[in-house]
């Protein structure tokens, strides 16, 4: 076996783990016979930095957890066997991690160099656009998208084809399209990786959409916190214009399209489409009343179609492979595939794409490899800060829009945060509520003040000052906030509280009635003591204590001064003899 090519994963996930150093080292050490290239997110983010080798038989092997010391072997064609994660030839058929996945939106992620338009073109890139412009009228494009069953991947799940139809039917001398790349959910990174790994797929999807709805100008509203995505997008736009895939008279047709990248200033609410439009217009990002919907009156009061990154990334595949091929995947009204960002206390976090209808258990255990340190699973948070926490008994729920909504969570954009027994559900509800309440635009009374008051009640419960009436108050406020808010942020902000109250009420009761935090997270409710019999007097705990609350002489039993103790747990984590007791 001879290595012919090495591709280093250089999306944010790889770069953050040190991929640049790997690439630089390989650049100097590899023999000329081996081609070195960059690619982006391969999907196995947990193992970054990683690389893919392609041998003379065309077989790919993926190596992860790399350090520069491991690289020598690649130069000598003796890669470190224990760093091998997957060998496509030997493992792919029986590997659950791969077998469960269907890569449509992420079809090129980790395969190509995102900065090289030729590599995109080589994998059927811009074929769909050419086909649309040469062979299809706008209505037949819309019909194809409708038939595919594709629904908005930003979270709401509205039929993409229908949305295009509205924008198409709207009267207007000028129309716009927008790509919503303001991915803001904590723990979600699907859009970032799509933009970093395959920007042209998004651009091509947008171009097809623009043709279908009759727009000639578009914006990609991208978080400024995604500098790599912005850079790759900007380059991709220039390259596509150079090649004539964007700009005037594309593929010789009468269709022209100008795309611009607009960087968001970091307001979560700008993911809401009316706020996003206000932000592009240079106003404060605040949602407004609908109707009128953007399809009638959007950007600069013109008909505007707005879709999420992942939605656009699916379009070219649908045109190339046909609506039926896409609709073949999925269950019920949820067709095709969905990309998820698997994160939290899961062994193998990363980006996965599965057909709708896959169960949560399959995603977390088969693809994600189960819970870190093999602790018991406690909950998975779906749909970001506005989603819900799903308990173990519901792990066999099918992942599709309807089933997820039924259990009190939302599909959202695809964030999936896994939690084990060390997570306090009140703390997590408090965390997400704190996020949404800080990110409220401040317009609606209930969202601005109501979420703050809910958060204060949660904090009160965490401090051990809760009373049973607080639960009623939380529920009442939650219902009122959901019923009386203008946009999705407010309408869904109470979800983490409602879903934890629904599935983990005992934990609330433990905090309120017993003044106890079962997960040992809420500092005001836990205390530490040293079991003098077990204590060997190693002094490690005393040295770790940040507030010098532990006293004792070497080889003698230690004690904790409760007045000084801040319940940080450093001693508990440090003790090797289980002598620190936590209550």
């Amino acid at each position, binding site marked *: 076996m001879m290595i012919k090519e090495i591709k280093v994963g250089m999306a944010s996930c790889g770069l953050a783990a040190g991929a640049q150093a790997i690439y630089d080292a390989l650049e100097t050490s590899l023999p000329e016979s081996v081609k070195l290239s960059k690619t982006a997110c391969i999907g196995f983010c947990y193992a970054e930095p990683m690389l893919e080798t392609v041998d003379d038989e065309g077989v790919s092997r993926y190596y992860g957890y790399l350090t520069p010391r491991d690289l020598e072997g690649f130069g000598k064609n003796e890669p470190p066997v224990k760093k091998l994660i997957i060998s496509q030839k030997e493992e792919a058929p029986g590997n659950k991690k791969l077998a469960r996945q269907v890569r449509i939106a992420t079809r090129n992620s980790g395969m190509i160099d995102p900065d090289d338009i030729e590599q995109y073109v080589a994998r059927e890139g811009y074929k769909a656009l050419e086909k649309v412009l040469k062979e299809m009228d706008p209505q037949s494009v819309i019909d194809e998208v409708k038939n595919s069953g594709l629904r908005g991947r930003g979270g709401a799940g509205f039929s993409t084809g229908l949305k295009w139809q509205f924008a198409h039917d709207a009267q207007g001398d000028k129309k716009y399209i927008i790509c919503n790349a303001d991915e803001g959910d904590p723990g979600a990174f699907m859009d970032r990786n799509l933009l970093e790994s395959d920007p042209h797929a998004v651009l091509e999807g947008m171009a097809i959409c623009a043709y279908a709805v009759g727009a000639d100008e578009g914006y990609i509203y991208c978080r400024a916190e995604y500098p790599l995505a912005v850079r790759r997008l900007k380059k991709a736009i220039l390259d596509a214009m150079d090649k004539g895939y964007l700009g005037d008279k594309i593929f010789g047709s009468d269709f022209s399209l100008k795309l611009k990248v607009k960087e968001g200033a970091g*307001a979560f*609410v700008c993911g809401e489409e009316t706020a996003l439009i206000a932000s592009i217009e240079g106003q*404060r990002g*605040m949602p*407004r*009343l609908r*109707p009128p919907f953007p399809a009638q009156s959007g950007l600069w009061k013109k008909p505007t179609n707005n879709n999420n990154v992942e939605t656009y990334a699916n379009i070219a595949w649908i045109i190339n492979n046909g609506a039926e091929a896409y609709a073949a995947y999925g269950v019920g009204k949820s067709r095709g595939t969905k990309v998820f960002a698997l994160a939290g206390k899961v062994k193998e976090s990363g980006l996965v794409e599965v057909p709708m209808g896959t169960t949560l258990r399959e995603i977390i255990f088969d693809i994600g490899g189960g819970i870190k340190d093999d602790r018991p699973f406690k909950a998975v948070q779906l749909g970001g800060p506005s989603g819900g926490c799903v308990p173990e008994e519901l792990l066999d729920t099918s992942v599709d829009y309807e089933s997820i909504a039924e259990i009190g969570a939302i599909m959202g954009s695809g964030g999936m945060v896994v939690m084990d027994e060390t997570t306090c559900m009140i703390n997590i509800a408090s965390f997400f509520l704190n996020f949404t*309440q*800080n*990110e*409220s*635009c*401040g*317009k*609606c*009374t*209930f969202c*601005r*003040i*109501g*979420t*703050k*008051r809910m958060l*204060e009640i949660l904090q009160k419960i965490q401090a051990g000052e809760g009373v049973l009436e607080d639960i009623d108050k939380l529920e*009442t*406020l939650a219902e*009122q906030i*959901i*019923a*009386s*808010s*203008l946009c999705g942020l407010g*309408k869904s902000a109470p979800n983490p509280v409602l879903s934890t109250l629904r599935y983990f009420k005992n934990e609330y009761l433990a905090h309120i009635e017993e003044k106890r935090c079962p997960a040992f997270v809420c500092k005001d409710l836990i205390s530490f003591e040293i079991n003098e019999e077990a204590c060997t007097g190693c002094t490690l705990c005393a040295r770790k204590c940040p507030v010098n609350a532990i006293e004792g002489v070497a080889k003698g039993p230690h004690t904790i001064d409760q007045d000084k103790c801040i319940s940080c747990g450093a001693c508990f984590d440090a003790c090797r003899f289980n002598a620190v007791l936590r209550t």
Partner: protein
Amino acid sequence: MKIYLNHKEVQCQEGQTILEVARENGISIPTLCHEPELNAYGSCWVCSVKVEGMRGFVTSCGTKVREDMSVITDSPEVKKARKTALELLLSDHYADCEAPCKIACPDHVDIQTYVSLIANGKFKEAVEVIKNNLPLPMSVGRVCPAFCEMECRRSLVDEPVAIRQLKRCAADLELDSDWYFVHDKKEDKGKKVAIVGAGPAGLTAGYFLSTEGYGVDIFESSPQAGGWLRYGIPEYRLPKAILDKEIDIMCKNGMNIIYNTKMGKDVFLKDLSKDYDAVFVGIGAQLPSPMRAKNADIEGCLLGVDYLRAVAMNQAPELGKKVAIVGAGDVAIDCARTALRSGADVTLLYRRTRKEMPAETYEVDAAEEEGVKLQFLINPIEMIDKDGKLDKVVIEKMKLGEPDDSGRRRPEATGESYEEKFDSIIAAISQKCDVSWHGDDRNKVEHELELSKWNTAESDAETMHWNDNVFAGGDFRVGPATAIEAVADGKIAAMSIDRFLRGEIMAGTHKFNSRKSDKIKDMDPEEFAEIPRKDRLKARELGVTERELNHKEVEASFGQEEASEEAGRCLECGCMVNTSCSLREYSTEYEANQDQYAGELTKHPIDESHPFILRDANKCINCGRCIRICAEVQGPAVLGYIYRGFASVVGPEFGEKLEDTVCTTCGKCIEVCPTGALLPKTKHYKNNPTYFTYRDSRCSECGAACYVTIQEEHDTVLRVDAKDDNDFNGLNLCYKGRFDWQNLDVQLSAEDLNSLDVPEGTVMNISPAMSNEMIKEALSYAKDKGLEVVSCELTADPCEDYAELKDLDEVEALVLVGPLNQMIKAKARSLQLKGAKMIVVNQLDDRFNGLADADLSDLASLEIEKDVKTLFIYNREELDMDMKNEINTLMSKLDTAKAWVNSAYLNTRGLESFDVKAVEELDTANVIVWGKTPDNCYADKVWRLLLKPFHVKGTVITDFGEEIKL
């Protein structure tokens, strides 16, 4: 189309909102954020309604009707949602509706208002305000412990405002002059009320009931009226001549007092209840508690109440040389100081220490100053007589134990005692009510009149209603208390007796009251750190030697100037719009509780930087109306939201001060603010929340002659607003209309001109800002003196086709040329919002231009179709003649163009009609400038005949040729 409103079918038009349809059908829906001039916004969620078949609630301002839509506006869940919205807003509303002094006052006297009136030198008006609640301010102004001052926020800066003395100073006007104030007596209602007891409660009830038109008879057991004020308060604190005068004034509306008539002896409650339509029992608590010591019934042992009463009746008993007073309340101090004035050597004996003394500190200090000796931790336990007369008192030493229910440490006997020689001992421990009449059948009415275990009347605290047609209040209801508390009961009794006799529900409505804190001790003094300190003024008092052996009044009144200065220290805590605030109105309607969702508050400094607009973000509810009206109608866009989430706040960008922005001071933001977050400032007047009169007028600052409403307080202009519901300027005024009156100079008399020596060659320049009558007068004066009359403000105008008011409604295109005032711009914008195209031609770097459909640099680039109804708007003083000619030429080419030529002066066209010539500049040194001085004219000798704005009398002609009689 039709929809269903609360299941009732109603007709409506497509495009209407639920709010509009509901209002058309007489259903009131509250709203705070809805701005009628703009599209719906939907931020406050106070207008929630339920649309059947839709999840959650919708905003009625932001939801358009659909055929057969079923809307519920009044269900319990809808009301609960609105109430929650209000309660959430209130949980972050750091503001006081009413001033804490007013709330602290048992009688809720409108202190802030009368203090402001005193600061403005309006003493008589202050008396009127005081008497709205408190009809005997001269007396109460002398004896009140001033609960108001204890809560005065000024004490967080330095010391509380001397409210009691201010009240007294104003009230004493009645003492020192023939002037007095009583409310106008209403028409005779043909019913009569009996009152038992002419103390402060009975007198107050009697005064208000007689004013209301009822016949009032007061039955008083003593030979004179006043109750405790007469027989309990010593002369040196409240001279009885003053009390007499006050009671005289109170009787002016027909209250009749029948003296020496005691209930249970001379009259009986059963008869009163039958003979009168209602009875109020205010018999007080004047029965002294006995001394708890052995042998206390011998000669020389007196009770405080009896002693003070005897002194008041000039029957003072002989006390001897050495006198002991037992007790530490106000009555004990009064006894001590009175005894001292009879020449005795007075010692006050108290079981606890100085700290626990319930008497007012300043009274204790005064007593000590005058020579009363204070002895603490001692208790007389036995009287030893000599020949049946007091000789010695056995006094036990005490020590302090644990605190009791009152929070004061309990005195405990030590068992150790000694004897001391005294000629008299006066016990002033406590008083109770005399209810010896209560068991007698002759004093019974149909239903039981219950007494409490302390022998006080169990009448209702909200209404004073006892049972049947009998009411009771004052000390007889609450036990021995203060005069102001008795007055409060008397006032409440009068109001509920009036409602009772009119067959209405007796309880009054309670207005919602937002508070910064319940008690002053919970306030953060840091909030007041920037307020300059200014010491509280102290009233002069008689020196100690001047007080010896006489009963002269100790405390003097403030002089009026002093009082005004002291009143100026008031921090104006109560909200200036507490009578018009929508948030307060809805919170009252929905019985919102400010503490329901109490939590963290956002506190903001008040922005007083702007000369005319005050911004208090603490009162802001983030409804966004000011932001939107400024950005979308007025143009300058100086306000916006800052920050996100709970911290979000409205203000100029980057937290600038309003004064540092491009604000044009049009004041529209104040007009649209539903709370008191934006307020007009009045420079030369200390404002208060209670405006007295409203007068509609037309603004005389320019030819537009906008409709205004002037709020005045006794002939002083306090505030000018756009007149509600006018269809010309709407809520729009420019800076001049709304605020410029504050900058105007004093008015001179026309007669000044007659004595004038007019030099040769003098020209008379007359201002068009005058009434036609005044122009005529000026012309006749000029004719007499042979003066040439010109007007340099009146520049020539070649316009051939002036618009009339009605043309504004039909206009399809607007061309705004050159600088214009804010009102005209806003008017143009509102016409644009109704569908007209707006083109600006002014080469100005003005954010308003951003709202225009086209912003042209010159008229040459203007393209308008011939048949489009076009209105050219310009200001005749702002454009040169070439420009005006250009406009006129353009207009002549268009079929339907007209011009709205705004003049800086109200009567420009009126002046033309008098054949006054227009000049650009005057080439003479001697000018008589008649009327408002123009900036561009200079004169050797200038006599200003400045017009007081809004007081133009006569006929004026507006931009549209209207003749208005003012």
